[in-house]
Every structure is written in structure tokens, then in C-alpha cells.
């Protein structure tokens, strides 16, 4: 008997940490109790991307989308929806500004505006079941590639599709593969490596793809291997991704069992296998040469890439390194054709891109949109606008070393060139939205701090230069900056970008440079001793005005007893004792505490 309903329980890391597995078990127990377990199947899926509202539960074929479902909701849900057929409104998602909850997933703007290519199986399959992947057309592209196409044709197809590296650099994938094929290898050995060392804070598209659809990566890798003639592949996964690692291992075993990996793939005589290498979590190991050094068992430090890794890479063999999302795109291109893929996106940036939407937006999560979508659409339509009805100030794209883009660039179409020209980058697809409560100098300092601690420290400009930038930014935040500091910063940025050994140092000045370029006024304000966003503690003062009712809350909240005043009387702050923690500001219900 077929199942009449499928309950798709999201088991991405976000939802799992919101206890979706407990929810699944409760559901399953409830179904069994009611004798519905033969009619209704529970499927654990990968990440749906809308991690902010997890745990997510999708009921198919009705298409009803439930959010924030708790174990205690299970009896009600089963009784109402599954038995009586009445979807439960209280568990549905209500978009911002909307009055009524939206029952169907496709009607929710967050999902509606997305175009799923790399994430095509998101939420629809159980990532631990290869059968689910095959059912949705998985490995068809591999079959097609292996039987009807020559390696050269595949490379031509990828070139024609305009697919570019999704890991940050945006190098055309087809050309990379072609270069590798032409590179000289004494014994003919070539390697294919998948970079799953996703280090950008807040970015988790690669993790999500591996967790939700590991076979799409495997399929892409096998096709790539066939194209370049590699027989051994590696995937470099961060050790901080245990779930991704587990699911990928399961997927590898299944693919080997089905003859889709290993010796004589699909009976075509082509051999290729993948070895999993666990990275220890260094940000710099996402850099290709550092990553390869790490796989080889050496210290994960970059080396100069004057001779590219495509020619002399892993174990000194020609090596293709692509990231997870790039590989996930490959089967679709092979299956649906380069033409179709190239029809999506802009002139030089084809296809879709997965972004992780974070920061001060209402809907945070993972979204896949066509290239060329404007930042505004991304932030306001999909992201639902600024959280807590704040005012947009800046958006940072491309991870910690991406630049900050101001409001007047919101209509910038998202593609590799446009972002670069604006002083930022596509990066791996992180999008961090900042509102009026963010101080751009402070934010720049924050990211520079991250980069200085993640620098491997090998070359002088990256190690000493970023540290110097951090020192100057800190000085400015502390209100001790001078006009000369800005010039020094600019000079530093330029030399660090010019002379750093690898892209980490090369792109590290971006946050500083763009904040100087678009938000110079904030720097100048700091030089005058003011932090417009009221963030930099050295530059703000908390005061209590006459709106104070003497409720005494701030008195209780102050950790240093800097608030003076008897209950029912007006309070005041002793500035000498105040550590500017903002506790009084947060607890005050009468807007009596001010920040300036």
C-alpha cells in the first residue's frame, strides 16, 4: 500500500539543534499509536534553508508548511491534520506584514522567490537514502555522461554553461577542468578534490548541501573525475560538520554498493573513488594550497600559486579543486544542458547561487536564487526586510573578507563582476545585513579581528598588516584615532592586498576599504569622538532623563552599582563607575535611559 501522506521532517543541523529528531520520534510514536504508520511515511530530510523557524515540518502532497513544531504539538497535529484533514493554522508560518498564516510552502515568499538548482532536492529526500535521490532523477546525469559523452564533450558542456566556481574565486569551472587535462602529469595521475572546508562565519550552504543531498556532490565529482581523467578524489570536510560527515560517509557507502562509485562505475569500466579527509577547522585551510598541504599531512599553510594547483597540486599532480556547490550544479548542467543553465543569470554569471542570509533580516536562512537578482530583492523580498523594523545600513557579501555595500547599491545585481567592482565579492555566498544599530568602524574592526586570528601567520603583510589594521581600528573605536590613521589604514590596505601570499590576506582589507569608501563619515565621526550607532563604548555615555519614573529596574540591573536613586525617585548614573554595558538601557521601559 502506498503512503498517502509524507511527513517531511527537516533534519538539517539547524532543525536538529531545535530538536527535530525528537519531534520525528514523537510523530512516529503518535502515528503508531493511532495505527496510521502504514498510511503515513515520515521522511527525515536535509536542510530546508529556513532555519530561523525550525523545526520545519512539511506535509506532502498537501504542501502544508509547519514551523517551530514542538513535541507537545504532535498529538494536536496528528489529530487535526492527519486524521481529520484540517491543517493546523497555529503552526503555520506568518510572513512579516501578513495577517494570516500561509499554509502552503510555495506561497511563502521566502520559498516562492527561490530557484532551486544546487538545492533541487532540498526537503524532498531523505539524505541517508540513495533511493530517494535516484527517484528524483539522481545519477541520471552520470549515466548520460559516462555513456553518451566524451570527457572533452563534458568539459565543453561545462564551459558552455558558464558555470563558475562557487567557492569564492569564481574561476570558470570548465576552463579549470580543461587546464587540468592539459597539464603534464608524469604518470597520468590527476586528482579531483572537493572543498567542503566552509569556514566563513554564518555561511553554511556547503554543509546544507552535503547534509541534505550528499549524492548530488558525489555525482558531480564522478562526472568531473571522468572529465579530467581522475581516479582518486578527496573531499575535505571540516571536522565541525559531524552530521555532514556522517551523511556523506553513508552516501559514499551506498554509492559504492550501487556501483556508482569505485571500480567499474555503472559497468562502464571507469574507476573513481572518493576519500574523506577531515579538516581540523583552520579558516585558512579553505585556501587551495593550504587545503592540499593539509590533505598531504603537512601544516595547512598556503604556498605561492605562481604555478597553479591545476598543474602542480595535490602530491604534485594536476588537481582540480572545486567547492561543494559547484559540484552539486554539475549533474544538472549535464542533464538539462548548458543552454538551459546559461539562460539563467547575467552575462558573465550564470545559473543560481546559494546565499546564506544572516544578520538583521527577518527571514534568516539559506536561499538559492538566480544570479543577477538584486540585493534589494534578496534582502527585502526573500529576507522579509530588516528585523525589528530597523533601518537598513549595509550589507556584507562574501564572508568576513567581503566588503560592506551601502543602501544606494541595493539595486546592484548580484554577480561576480558587479560585486567585485563595488569593492566586495561573491565569496562563498554569505550575506550579512546590518541595520542602523551597527557601527561600521566597529564591524570592520570585528571582521579584521576575525581575519587576524585566522591568518596562518606565514607572510609578513597578512600577519603583521592585519594586526596593524586591527590596532588602528581599535584605536579609532576607542576615540583615539587621528586623521593620519585613516591614511595609514588606506596605505596598509593597499600593501596588504598587494603583497599577501594568498587570498586571505589579499581580500582581508575589503571590510576596511569598503567601510572607508562608503561610510567614511562614520570614521570621521569617531575621530571627533562620536559613534553614530552608539556602539563603541568609549564614545558613548548613558544618561537618565526626566522620563524616569523611579521604577528602580536599572538600579537592579547595573552590574557595577553605577545607578543611583531611591525607588519612585529619579535615578542618575555615576559616569566614573559606568562600564557602558547597556544593561540599564535595555531594561528601561520608559525610554528614560539615553545613549549618546
Amino acid at each position, binding site marked *: *500500500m*502506498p*503512503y*498517502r*501522506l*509524507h511527513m*517531511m521532517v527537516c533534519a538539517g543541523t539547524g532543525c536538529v539543534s531545535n530538536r527535530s529528531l525528537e519531534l520525528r520520534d514523537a510523530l512516529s510514536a503518535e502515528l503508531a499509536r493511532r495505527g496510521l504508520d502504514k*498510511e503515513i511515511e515520515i*521522511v527525515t530530510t536535509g536542510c530546508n534553508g529556513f532555519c530561523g523557524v525550525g523545526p520545519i515540518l512539511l506535509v*506532502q*502532497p*498537501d*504542501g502544508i508548511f509547519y514551523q517551530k513544531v514542538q513535541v507537545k504539538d504532535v498529538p494536536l497535529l496528528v489529530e487535526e491534520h*492527519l*486524521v*481529520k*484533514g*484540517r491543517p493546523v493554522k497555529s503552526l503555520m508560518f506568518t510572513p512579516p506584514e501578513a495577517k494570516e498564516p500561509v499554509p502552503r510552502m510555495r506561497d511563502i515568499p521566502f520559498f516562492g522567490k527561490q530557484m532551486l538548482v544546487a538545492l533541487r532536492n532540498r526537503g*524532498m529526500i531523505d539524505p541517508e537514502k540513495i*533511493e*530517494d535521490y*535516484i*527517484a*528524483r*532523477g*539522481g*545519477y*541520471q546525469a552520470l*549515466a548520460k555522461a*559516462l*555513456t553518451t559523452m566524451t570527457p572533452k564533450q563534458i568539459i565543453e558542456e561545462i564551459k558552455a554553461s558558464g558555470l563558475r566556481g562557487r567557492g569564492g574565486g569564481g574561476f570558470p569551472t570548465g576552463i579549470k577542468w580543461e587546464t587540468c587535462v592539459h597539464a603534464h602529469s608524469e604518470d597520468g595521475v590527476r586528482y579531483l578534490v572537493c572543498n567542503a572546508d566552509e569556514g566563513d562565519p554564518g555561511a553554511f550552504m556547503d554543509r546544507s548541501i552535503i547534509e541534505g543531498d550528499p549524492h548530488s556532490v558525489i555525482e558531480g565529482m564522478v562526472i568531473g573525475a571522468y572529465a579530467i581523467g581522475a581516479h582518486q578524489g578527496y573531499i575535505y570536510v571540516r571536522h565541525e560538520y559531524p552530521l555532514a560527515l556522517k551523511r556523506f560517509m553513508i552516501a559514499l557507502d551506498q554509492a559504492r*554498493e*550501487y*556501483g*556508482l562509485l569505485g571500480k*567499474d562505475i*555503472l*559497468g*562502464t569500466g571507469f574507476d573513481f573513488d572518493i576519500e574523506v579527509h577531515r579538516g581540523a577547522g583552520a579558516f585558512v585551510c579553505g585556501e587551495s594550497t593550504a587545503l592540499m598541504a593539509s590533505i598531504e599531512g603537512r601544516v595547512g599553510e598556503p604556498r605561492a600559486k605562481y604555478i597553479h594547483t591545476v598543474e602542480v597540486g595535490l602530491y604534485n599532480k594536476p588537481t582540480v579543486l572545486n567547492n561543494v556547490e559547484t559540484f552539486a550544479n554539475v549533474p544538472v548542467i549535464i542533464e538539462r544542458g548548458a543552454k538551459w543553465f546559461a539562460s539563467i543569470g547575467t552575462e558573465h554569471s550564470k545559473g543560481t547561487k546559494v546565499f546564506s542570509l544572516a544578520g538583521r533580516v527577518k527571514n534568516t536562512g539559506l536561499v538559492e536564487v538566480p544570479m543577477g537578482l538584486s540585493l534589494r530583492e534578496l534582502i527585502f523580498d526573500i529576507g522579509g526586510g530588516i528585523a525589528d523594523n530597523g533601518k537598513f545600513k549595509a550589507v556584507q557579501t562574501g564572508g568576513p573578507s567581503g566588503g560592506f555595500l551601502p543602501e544606494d547599491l541595493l539595486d546592484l545585481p548580484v554577480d561576480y563582476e558587479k560585486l567585485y567592482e563595488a569593492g566586495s565579492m561573491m565569496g562563498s555566498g554569505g550575506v550579512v545585513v546590518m541595520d542602523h544599530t551597527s557601527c561600521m568602524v566597529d564591524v570592520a574592526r570585528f571582521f579584521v579581528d576575525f581575519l587576524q586570528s585566522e591568518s596562518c601567520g606565514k607572510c609578513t603583510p597578512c600577519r603583521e598588516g592585519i594586526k596593524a589594521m586591527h590596532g588602528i581600528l581599535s584605536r579609532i573605536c576607542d576615540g583615539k584615532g587621528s586623521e593620519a590613521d585613516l591614511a595609514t589604514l588606506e596605505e596598509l590596505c593597499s600593501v596588504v592586498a598587494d603583497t599577501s601570499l594568498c587570498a586571505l590576506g589579499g581580500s582581508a582589507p575589503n571590510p576596511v576599504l569598503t567601510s572607508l569608501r562608503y561610510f567614511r563619515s562614520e570614521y570621521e565621526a569617531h575621530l571627533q569622538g562620536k559613534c553614530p550607532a552608539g556602539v563603541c563604548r568609549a564614545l558613548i555615555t548613558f544618561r537618565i532623563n526626566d522620563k524616569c519614573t523611579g521604577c528602580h529596574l536599572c538600579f537592579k540591573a547595573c552590574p557595577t552599582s553605577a545607578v543611583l536613586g531611591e525607588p519612585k525617585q529619579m535615578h542618575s548614573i555615576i559616569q566614573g563607575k559606568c562600564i557602558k554595558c547597556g544593561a540599564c538601557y535595555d531594561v528601561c521601559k520608559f525610554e528614560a535611559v539615553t545613549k549618546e
Partner: protein
Amino acid sequence: MAKLTISELQKLREKLAQERQTREGNARGQIIIHMGTCGIAAGARKVLTALLEAMDKQNVRDVIVSTSGCAGMCSKEPMATVQLPQQAPVKYISLNEEKIVRILNEHLLQGNVVKEFALAVGSERMG
């Protein structure tokens, strides 16, 4: 599991896809079996089982089967509502295992309302 060949992969895909078609949410129509206390007492569970078995036998994968509560006419249970896209829903009454199969075949699959079991066309307003 023996290793797959190309043709086996295709076959496997077709088989697996069919089994999971419901998940895709593309349906030619929906049938709701009313399963309130009264309905179940009158045999709605049997009717549902018969329907699902018939669908399985005939490999019907694109019909949404849902259940709902009491339709309010407890004396006419078991009842079912069939809804095809862009058409008014049709309510059937006093069903049994044979009748539901006919409804499946004639109404859901061929689009002809089985008039002799039908109560009425249309539905009370929701909300």
C-alpha cells in the same frame, strides 16, 4: 545489492519515483474520507483501506487521499468528498468498499461523477 548497470539504474529510478510521487505534490485530484467518530463507526476505515489498496493495485499515485472529521451528516456515513482541480467538490454518501473503488475509477480517474452515490455537488463555505 549488486552493482548497477545503466539500464538497471533507469528501471530503478522509474520504480522509486513512482513510489514517491505523492511527495512531489502534483495530483490530478483529491479525495477526502470523512473519518469522524461516526464515520469510523460506520466503516470509514474499511473504505479508506479499500481505496488505498485499489490505488496500489492500479498504480494510481497522483491522487491525494486525505481524511477529515465528521461531515455533519452522521446518518449518511461513510462519506467522501472528491475534488478535481477547477471543479466543485462532490460529496458521496453511504459508501462501502465497492462504491469507493467505483468512485476512484469513474470520478477521480475519468472525471465522471458517480451520480447514484453522490449527495450533492458543492460544499459549504469554509471559515
